[in-house]
C-alpha cells in the first residue's frame, strides 16, 4: 500500500508541457483561433462563396463595384467588384504561409549562425594560408586543402578589385597633377604591393564569433523598412536575374516568395543572438566536456548536445516571430511594396483603405481586424509557451 502511494504516474516531457500550457487560458484561446485559421486556409476553396480574383464581366459592370455588405456579398465588394469575404478567406493562406515559412526558415538560419558563433567563440579558425607559408602542422584534411586553394582566389580577387578602384580614382587626380595626388597614388600602390606580399606568406585567422556578431550589428544599423522597400522593388524587377528566376518558378506567387526571402534575411538576427548567448554558457557545461572527452566531433557536440538544450526559448521565439512576420508582410503590402494584386492578402486589401473609409468603410475594417486577431493569437500562444516551458515559473 505504502509503495503504491509513492508511485507517481510517469509523465512524458510533452505531457507535462501540455498540462502546464492548458492552464494558460488566453494561450489556449489563441491556439483555438490559430487552428481555426489554419482550417480556413486549407479549406478556402470550399468555404469561400466566390472566386477571390473573379471580376464581374458583361455590360454595366459598374453596378457591382463598391457594393455595401448584403446577403449575396456578406462583406460587400471592392473597387473591382470582387467579393471581400472570399478575398479575406483566401488572404489567410498567404498570411499563414508567410508567417510559418519566415519563422521556420529564420529560426533554422539563426540557430545555425548562433551556434557557430557561440561554439567557436574565442577559437579562431584558420581561414587563409598564403601559398608560400610553411606549415607547422603537417597534415590537414582534403576539405581544407581545397579551401586553401580557393581562398587564394578570393584574396587576390579582392585585391585586384581594390587596385582597380584605386587606379580609376587616382586617374582623376593624376590628370589634375597635384603633388598630393601623386603622393596618394604612390602610397596606395605601396599598400597594395604590401598586401600582395602578405598574401603570399601570411595567414589569416577568422574568429567566427566576431564575424557573425559584427554582421548582426551591421545589419541592425541599416534602417530596416527602407531597405525592405528597396529590396522588394529590386527583386520584383523583371530586368533582374533573381526577379526573372522567381517569376519563372513561382509565377503569380513570385512576390510571396520574394517577401519570405526578404523577411528571413532580417528575421534570423534575433534568433542568432539568443542562441549564441545560450550556447556560450552551455558549452561550458560538464556534459559538453564529457562528449568532447569521448571523442565526439564539433558538429556532433553542437547539434546533438547543445542545440536541443536551447529548444525551449527557440519555440517561443518562433511563435512570436510568426506574428511579427505576418505584421511586417501586411505593412509592406499596405505600402504597395509587398505581395502584388491580384493575389489577395490582408495587407494589400488595405492599400487604399484610408481613402475608402469615407465612402466604403467595409473595405477598410475586416482585413485589418483579421491581421489583428491572428497576431494577437500568436502573441498569446507565445506567452503561454514561455510560461509552460520555463522551469522556473510555477503554474
Amino acid at each position, binding site marked *: 500500500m505504502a509503495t503504491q502511494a509513492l508511485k507517481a504516474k510517469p509523465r512524458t516531457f510533452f505531457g507535462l508541457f501540455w498540462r502546464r500550457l492548458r492552464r494558460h487560458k488566453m494561450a489556449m484561446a489563441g491556439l483555438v483561433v490559430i487552428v481555426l485559421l489554419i482550417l480556413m486556409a486549407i479549406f478556402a476553396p470550399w468555404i469561400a462563396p466566390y472566386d477571390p480574383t473573379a471580376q464581374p464581366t458583361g455590360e454595366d459592370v459598374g453596378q457591382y463595384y463598391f457594393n455595401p455588405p448584403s446577403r449575396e456579398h456578406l462583406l460587400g465588394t471592392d473597387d473591382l467588384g470582387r467579393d471581400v469575404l472570399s478575398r479575406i478567406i483566401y488572404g489567410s493562406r498567404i498570411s499563414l504561409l508567410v508567417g510559418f515559412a519566415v519563422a521556420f526558415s529564420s529560426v533554422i538560419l539563426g540557430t545555425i549562425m548562433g551556434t557557430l558563433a557561440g561554439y567557436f567563440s574565442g577559437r579562431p579558425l584558420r581561414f587563409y594560408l598564403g601559398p608560400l607559408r610553411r606549415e607547422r602542422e603537417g597534415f590537414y584534411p582534403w576539405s581544407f586543402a581545397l579551401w586553401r586553394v580557393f581562398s587564394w582566389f578570393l584574396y587576390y580577387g579582392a585585391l585586384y578589385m581594390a587596385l582597380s*578602384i584605386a587606379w580609376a*580614382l587616382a586617374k582623376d587626380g593624376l590628370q589634375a597633377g597635384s603633388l598630393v595626388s601623386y603622393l596618394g597614388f604612390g602610397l596606395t600602390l605601396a599598400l597594395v604591393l604590401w598586401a600582395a606580399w602578405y598574401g603570399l606568406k601570411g595567414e589569416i585567422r577568422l574568429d567566427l564569433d566576431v564575424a557573425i556578431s559584427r554582421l548582426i550589428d551591421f545589419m541592425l544599423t541599416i534602417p530596416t523598412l*527602407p531597405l525592405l522597400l528597396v529590396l522588394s522593388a529590386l527583386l520584383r524587377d523583371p530586368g*533582374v536575374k533573381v526577379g526573372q528566376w522567381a517569376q519563372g518558378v513561382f509565377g503569380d506567387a513570385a512576390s510571396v516568395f520574394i517577401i519570405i526571402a526578404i523577411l528571413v534575411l532580417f528575421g534570423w538576427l534575433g534568433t542568432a543572438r539568443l542562441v549564441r548567448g545560450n550556447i556560450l554558457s552551455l558549452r561550458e557545461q560538464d556534459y559538453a566536456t564529457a562528449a568532447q572527452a569521448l571523442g565526439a566531433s564539433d558538429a556532433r557536440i553542437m547539434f546533438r548536445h547543445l542545440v536541443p538544450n536551447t529548444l525551449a526559448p527557440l519555440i517561443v521565439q518562433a511563435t512570436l516571430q510568426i506574428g511579427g512576420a505576418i505584421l511586417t508582410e501586411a*505593412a509592406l503590402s499596405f505600402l504597395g511594396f509587398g505581395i502584388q494584386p491580384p493575389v489577395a492578402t490582408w495587407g494589400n486589401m488595405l492599400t487604399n483603405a484610408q481613402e475608402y473609409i469615407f465612402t466604403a468603410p467595409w473595405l477598410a475594417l475586416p482585413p485589418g481586424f483579421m491581421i489583428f486577431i491572428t497576431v494577437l493569437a500568436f502573441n498569446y500562444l507565445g506567452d503561454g509557451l514561455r510560461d509552460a516551458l520555463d522551469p522556473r515559473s510555477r503554474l
Partner: protein
Amino acid sequence: MFAYTVRRLLQMIPLLLAASVVIYALLALQPGDPLEELKRQNPRMTAEQFEALKRAYGLDQPLHIRYFKWLSRAVRGDLGYSRTYGIPAAEYIFVQRLPKTLILSGLALTLALVVAIPVGVFSAVRQYSLADYVITFLSFVGFSMPVFFLGILLLYLFAIWLPDHIPGFPRFPTGGVPGVLWEDVRSGAISFWYFLGQWAWHLILPVIALSSLQMAEWTRFMRASLLEVLSQDYIRTARAKGLAERVVLYKHALRNALIPIVTLVGLAIPGVLGGATITETIFSYPGMGRAIFDALVEKDYNVAMAALAFLALMTALFNLLADLAYAVVDPRIRYS
C-alpha cells in the same frame, strides 16, 4: 570608460562605411534610373541630349566611382541636390522634414514613456488583480495591433463615425499639418495659443496611433522588470528592517527596475528620427518616413542617400549612447 568610448567610436567608422556602401549599392541597383523617367516625359529628346544629361548626372561612370565621389562630397557636408524639389538634399531633409518628424515621433515617444512607466509599476504592484489583467490584455492588444489598422480605425471613428452619429462631437482632421504659419504668430496675426491649439488638434490622432505599440511594449517590460526586482533578496531585507512600503518601492525597487528601460529608450530614438512611414502615410503628414519613401519611389537618390546615411549614423551613435548610459545608471557594469 573614456578609452572604451573612443574605441567604440573608432569601430563605428568601418561599420558606417560598410553601411553606406550597401545602401548606395542597393539604391543604384534599383530598377530604372532617373534618366529613363525624363526620357519618357520628353520623347523627342535626342541621343546627344540624353548623353549630355547622363554626363551631367554623373551616371556615365561606373558604380564604385560614383560612390567614392558621393562619399568624398558627403564627408565635406555636400549631400547634393534633390532632383524632385530642386533644393539641396540636406535642406530638404534636415530643415523641412526632420523638425516635423521630431515633433510627431518625439511626442509619441514621450507619451508612450509617460504612460508606460506608471501603468507598468501599478500593474506590477497589483500583480494578479483585475486591473493587472486588464492592463496586460490591453498591452497585448497594443502590440498585436498593426499601426496602419489602428490609424485607419482612429480616423474612421473620430473623423467620420462619431461626428456623424453624435451631434456636437468635434470632427477631427483627417491628416496633414495645420495651415497656420509661425510667421503669423510673430507678426501678431494669430495668437500663440491658437497656433499651438491647431497643431495639437492635428497631432492627437497620429500621436496616439504611433505611440500605442511602444506604450504596450514598455508597459509589459516595466511590469516584468519591476516584478523581477521585487523578488530579490534586498527587497525582502528592506521590508524586514521596517522601511515603509513607499520607500521600498520607489527607492529600492523602482530605481533598479528602471535600468533596462534606459537602454530601451536609447535604442528607440533612432526610430524617432527615421519617422514613421506608415503613420505618416495614413495621416498624410510630411515627415522623414514619408520623405524616404517618396525619394525611393521617385528615385531621388541624393535625398534617399542623405536620409538613410543619417539614420545609420544615428543608429550607431545611439547604440553607443545606450551602452554608456547603462554603465552610468548601473555601477556594476564596467567597460574596459
